[in-house]
């Protein structure tokens, strides 16, 4: 199977180029396996990967124009020749490795941690199964970055717009019956940028390898904000 892989090593290259590789497809081969095979052929090729089962979120890349996880994408699902590029809109460090620091900054900016102000009970804070169900589809995010780096609004304003990943996490805490910082969280999201750059383009939903729905979460935040303002 033919692969064209984006190559750029700032130590030796002046400009990026696409390099061709031939990989023999084995049964059950995932895109990550193919990239590892390419690394076997060419030691100088760099990409991030770790768990190989879609939970660590290291190996998000853009293949044939789509953001996806290498380890959960069978190569047989990809049209030949496969064009593999780094996640769009992020500065390239080397080959498929991009600088995700703005993405992480936006995550930190939504205070992604439980804030419980009442005195803590000696045992667990009780939560009904129904309230717990509200966190399904939110807490599973693996921070791979497929969504935010496919979001045009994040491309244009990565320094000011939180992006779908961070907003999904903002809603994860707003939706948690144990969290007691709803007002502060909503206030912090005011303004035209952090939340309201979302134009429901829904690339995030399409690209999420865990089938999560950040657009829906963003809609819920807006709804709650409106409720609190009237």
């Amino acid at each position, binding site marked *: 199977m033919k692969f064209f892989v984006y190559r750029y090593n700032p130590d030796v290259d002046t400009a990026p180029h696409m390099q061709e590789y031939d990989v023999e497809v084995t049964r059950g081969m995932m895109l990550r396996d193919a990239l590892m095979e390419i690394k076997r052929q060419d030691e100088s090729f760099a990409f991030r990967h770790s768990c190989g089962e879609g939970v660590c979120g290291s190996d998000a890349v853009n293949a044939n124009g789509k953001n996806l996880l290498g380890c959960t994408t069978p190569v047989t699902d990809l049209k030949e020749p496969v064009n593999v590029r780094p996640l769009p809109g992020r500065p390239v460090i080397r080959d498929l490795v991009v600088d995700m620091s703005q993405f992480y900054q936006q995550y930190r900016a939504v205070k992604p941690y439980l804030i419980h102000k009442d005195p803590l009970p000696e045992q667990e804070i009780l939560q009904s199964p129904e309230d717990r169900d509200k966190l399904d589809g939110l807490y599973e995010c693996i921070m791979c970055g497929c969504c935010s780096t496919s979001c*045009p*609004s994040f491309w*244009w*304003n990565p320094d*000011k717009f939180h992006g779908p990943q961070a907003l999904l996490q903002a809603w994860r805490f707003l939706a948690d019956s144990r969290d007691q910082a709803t007002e502060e969280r909503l206030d912090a*999201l*005011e*303004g*035209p*940028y*952090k*939340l*309201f*750059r979302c*134009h429901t383009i829904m690339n995030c939903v399409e690209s999420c390898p865990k089938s999560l729905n950040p657009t829906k979460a963003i809609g819920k935040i*807006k709804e709650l*904000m*409106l409720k609190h*303002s009237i």
Partner: protein
Amino acid sequence: MSRQASGLRAWALQRISAAYLGLYLIYILGHLSFNAPDSYESWRVYVADPGVTIGMLLFVSALLIHAWVGIRDVLIDYVHPIMARVALLSLFAIGLIGCGLWFARVIFLASVAA
């Protein structure tokens, strides 16, 4: 700009104006297909009706607000140099206000002539 400009208000105004625009368009298209005024005079009488006047003025305001928020969004997304953005925003603001004034004048004249 981000501190003063609103997020929720702009978004809510856009949604509310859209709802009004949608409803009004259904009404006006319905009215025109069954009851279209056939002369300048019948048009003038129709517009001079106080209910219709208010409805149309609201329609124009909603349209302008909707357009303003939309244009603002596009400019915030794509035009990052602050001077260029302010210049473009001013240009569109003047244009939209101009349209509004012209429309108000048309409706006002129609009512006065009656």
